[in-house]
């Protein structure tokens, strides 16, 4: 139908135009897939399977134009886009596309009602024989419908309007504690049935020396399932108790923005941005919770049964740029961002505990300058400074002050080479407030905790890169970056992150014979954290300098992530413009480990453990190898044929998933009813493609 509309439009345009261009190309691809292992990981964002894939491109171009593209027709990645308009007057687009996200296929659960908001099971306890469980797939898919138009004919004014709807459907894994504390964990297949509608209208005026624009952005999120009701196998009255997991609430969001710019003397320009937004939600709160008590339900007293969420933001940006003399570029800026939480404050009382939600808000004031100096000897120096002050409604660190200094130097003294070096220093001050509690209060431990997101730190980043093009057909580049972060005041928590990155790239063109490209990347990141283990209900021994006992002691973990990837690609023009052979190989590897240390003093390690046998050697370790060989034959100017073979192998090993058990235990803190989410991610696949493309 859509195609027919396009063709109709084209026919109309044909009659209006006196000179035009019409292009059509149609591609049909047959695919054969042979796969062993995890099909979901292989097709995480793809839909490669046995079948025929179609791609169509239609273009009509004259005073009016229509450009239609469709690909992967009928598959989970199908996408369609029609653009059109009248040159210099207006343009529009309509599109539809799908994005799958596959997590794990063939997962299992003892629950019935999967993909609905009610999960139940018969009998008690649930069967531990996973052969009796139902199977399903963890997968979500986004379907996006969009359209928009823009008017250029009213220059210097303009108007742009876009509208879209995204439907997101599927099943996603979320876990809950059966009871707390100390209970089993239950993995639940959660239904995803979201719709997000968005509208953006922007109008403005743009003619030197002035730019003005006003825009309105609106987004409405609607979730079909506000709660997931599930029979909790861990509670006392298991026959009748239905527990509830709350799901994302519906929300409405709108934002009004004004942008402006004005050219000033001395080759300068002043830009500003003023914006305000509001996000709201309305939620009927649960007046009970489920616990391991007779009857299963515990009443919850609420100061208000409905939560009205309201988050307001304001953003102001002022930027002055200037190029007053040829050797100087400058920019000074100020930005203010504020998040105000005007939601309801609600007090709840349950199980003898009174809690009131905190309304988190913050504001940031950021100002700074950047200057670029064109120096003799083909040197270009860019220096920058900015200061950010953050105030937040948070007890531990209400204020941060960041100072960021940067300097970048580029030298391009030789025609064939550019060298860049850069340095950035971030110094963060944090106003830490220790909790005002007695030393025997469990909260006292936070006297020693500095949370990494706000903790004081010094971060130094060094980078250097060299780009060399000794001949027109050879490019070579090499780069290195070192980034070290020292969380200098941290007693307990993340103390240090050190990172090194290294990249090499090269490409070479052998005249009309071949084009070669190769790359190599290496990255090593090390994390060091220091913690203190304390037993549940501890009332002493919080200070990490306290001599250790078997129950209260310090420990640390050193994580290492090493990743590298390399690739090689060659386009070999066996018969120039007629027959091309493409070869490609990519290799990606990650190797992670964790080195633990118990700081127990003279106390022995728990039975069976030593400082060496506790370490983890497979911490998100994976290898992805892929090989592709492809031949493209342009039989005529209109007809081309291609054939390709792809081999892809992914091996994955991780201490948290290796030896996966659906029900490792049915009670206690080893207890779990899992569904197999993210289990056994390795796969090996062979894919053969055969394509024919015809251009009319």
């Amino acid at each position, binding site marked *: 139908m859509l195609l027919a509309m396009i*063709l109709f439009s084209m026919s109309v345009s044909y009659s209006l135009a006196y*000179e035009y261009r*019409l292009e059509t190309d149609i591609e049909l691809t047959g695919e054969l897939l042979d796969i062993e292992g995890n099909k979901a990981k292989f097709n995480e*964002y793809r839909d490669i399977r046995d079948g025929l894939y179609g791609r169509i491109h239609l273009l009509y171009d004259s005073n009016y134009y229509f450009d239609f593209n469709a690909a992967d027709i009928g598959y989970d*990645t199908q996408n369609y886009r029609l653009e059109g308009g009248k*040159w*210099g007057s207006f343009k529009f687009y309509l599109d539809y596309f799908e994005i799958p*996200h596959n997590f794990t296929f063939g997962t299992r659960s003892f629950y019935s009602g999967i993909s609905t908001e009610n999960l139940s099971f018969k009998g008690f306890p649930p069967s531990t024989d996973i052969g009796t469980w139902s199977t399903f797939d963890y997968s979500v898919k986004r379907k996006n419908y969009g359209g928009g138009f823009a008017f250029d004919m009213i220059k*210097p004014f303009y108007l742009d309007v876009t509208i879209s709807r995204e439907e997101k459907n599927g099943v996603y894994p979320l876990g*809950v504690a059966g009871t707390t504390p100390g209970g089993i964990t239950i*993995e639940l297949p959660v239904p995803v049935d979201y719709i997000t509608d968005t509208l953006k209208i922007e109008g*403005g005026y743009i003619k030197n020396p002035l*730019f003005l624009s006003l825009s309105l952005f609106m987004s409405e*999120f609607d979730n079909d399932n506000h709660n997931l009701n599930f029979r909790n196998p861990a509670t006392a009255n298991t026959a009748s108790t239905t527990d509830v*997991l709350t799901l994302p*609430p519906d929300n409405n969001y709108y934002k009004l923005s004004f*942008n402006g710019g004005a050219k000033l003397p001395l080759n300068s320009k002043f830009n500003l941005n003023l914006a305000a937004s509001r996000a709201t*939600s309305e939620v009927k*709160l*649960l007046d009970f*919770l489920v616990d391991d008590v007779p009857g299963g339900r515990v009443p919850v007293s609420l100061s208000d049964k409905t939560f009205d*969420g309201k*988050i307001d*933001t304001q953003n102001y940006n002022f930027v002055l*740029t200037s190029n007053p003399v040829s050797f100087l*570029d400058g920019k000074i800026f100020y*930005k203010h961002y504020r998040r105000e939480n005007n*939601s309801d404050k*609600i007090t*709840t009382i*349950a199980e003898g505990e009174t*809690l009131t*939600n905190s309304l*988190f808000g913050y504001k940031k004031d950021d100002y700074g300058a950047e200057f670029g100096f064109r120096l003799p000897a083909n040197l270009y120096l860019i220096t920058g400074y900015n200061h950010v002050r953050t105030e*937040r409604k948070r007890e531990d660190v209400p204020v941060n002050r960041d100072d960021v200094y940067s300097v970048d130097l580029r030298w391009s003294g030789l*025609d064939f080479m550019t060298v860049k070096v850069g340095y950035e220093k971030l110094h963060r001050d944090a106003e830490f407030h220790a909790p005002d509690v007695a030393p025997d209060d469990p909260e006292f*431990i936070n006297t*020693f905790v500095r949370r*990494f997101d*706000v903790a004081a730190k010094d971060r130094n980043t060094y980078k250097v890169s060299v780009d060399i093009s000794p001949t027109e057909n050879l490019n070579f580049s090499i780069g290195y*970056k070192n980034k070290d972060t020292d969380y200098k005041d941290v007693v307990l*928590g*993340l103390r240090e992150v050190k990172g090194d990155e290294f990249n090499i*790239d090269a490409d070479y063109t052998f005249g009309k014979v071949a084009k070669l490209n190769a790359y190599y*990347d290496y990255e090593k990141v090390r994390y060091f*954290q220091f*913690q203190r283990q*304390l037993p549940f209900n501890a009332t002493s021994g919080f200070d990490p300098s306290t001599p250790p006992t078997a129950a209260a002691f310090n420990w640390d*973990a050193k*994580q290492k992530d090493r990743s590298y*990837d390399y690739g090689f690609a060659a386009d070999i023009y066996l018969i120039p413009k007629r027959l091309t052979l493409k070869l490609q190989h990519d290799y*990606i590897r*990650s190797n992670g480990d964790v080195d633990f240390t118990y700081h127990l003093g003279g106390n022995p390690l728990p039975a069976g453990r030593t400082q060496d046998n506790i*370490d983890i050697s497979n911490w998100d370790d994976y290898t992805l190898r892929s090989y592709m060989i492809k031949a493209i034959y342009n039989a005529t100017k209109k007809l081309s044929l291609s054939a390709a073979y792809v081999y892809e192998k992914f091996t994955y090993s991780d*201490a*948290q998933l*290796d030896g996966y058990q659906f029900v*490792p235990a049915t009670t206690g803190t*080893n207890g779990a009813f899992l569904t197999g989410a*993210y289990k056994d991610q390795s796969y090996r696949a062979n894919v053969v493609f055969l394509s024919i493309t015809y251009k009319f």
Partner: protein
Amino acid sequence: MKRFVFSLSILFVLSLALNDRSAAGNITSGNLENCKNCNEGKSAEGNMSYVGSEICASCHADIYDAFLKSVHGKKMIPDSPANKRECESCHGPGSEHVFKPGRGKGIFVFNKDVPAKDRSSKCLACHEESKSLAFWDMSKHKSADVPCDNCHSIHYGTEKYLKAAEPDLCFSCHRDIRSQSNKQSHHPLKEGSIKCSSCHSPMGGFGVKMIKADSINELCYKCHSEKRGPFMWEHPPVEEKCLNCHVPHGSNHSKLLTEKVPFLCQNCHNEIGHPSTIYTRFETFKGTASSGKNRMFARSCLNCHSNIHGSNGPSARGSHWLR
């Protein structure tokens, strides 16, 4: 269906009828003589004069043909080069080049021998008055001396006349991002479902790292609107910046996390009991620990604290993001 077939038939007939129609003129080297005899159109650059695009096409037919098909060749657009001096609108007067032909000789060319600023200024002369370039002066690309033609082709190209499709074009400079996007947990960038420009404004804007939003969270919520809340029980680091826990370009760890759980959580939560506990190889599926394993295996802390982005759950179940 009939309409479909009928329309397709029309298309086919039109295609056959118009297939060989070429908009490019047939310029021969003989036209050069006209140029040599031309005394009109002297430019500001001394004695150099405009020769007309027919002369250009006589040697550069492919490029001229592409130019005519491009947006720059549209006479319907009032300010397009097609309504000015076509090739010479950007390359300047061509007389010297005609008399002394050679790659880049006697005309303005877009190559690395010409300062970035001068190359960009050619484009900005027409495109500055467009909303996408309204904030070019604030762009990191501008301050790093990246001219327009590093990414855009004047004559050919894919969408937006880019020299290569995203993300490969961006990766040619941002190699660290390429490396990150190769990692096992990534946004569907390589798969083509999203682009770098879905989140970034390469031609300048007010956002940090040229993102298309006033804050990181605002940007993320455009696609992840379910995370917007507002929730009764908030997790402050989540509300302040998604990047406290996630890396957007790719991670070795699932869900684009900066570190694996439980360490990521324990970096902030050392409270008594299970948050403070050392979870080692003994607490994995294969480990022999008699308790505490469900805080380590599978998704670790997230096995129970699933509503980590915010919750409206009851009482402590909500405040601890358990329901």
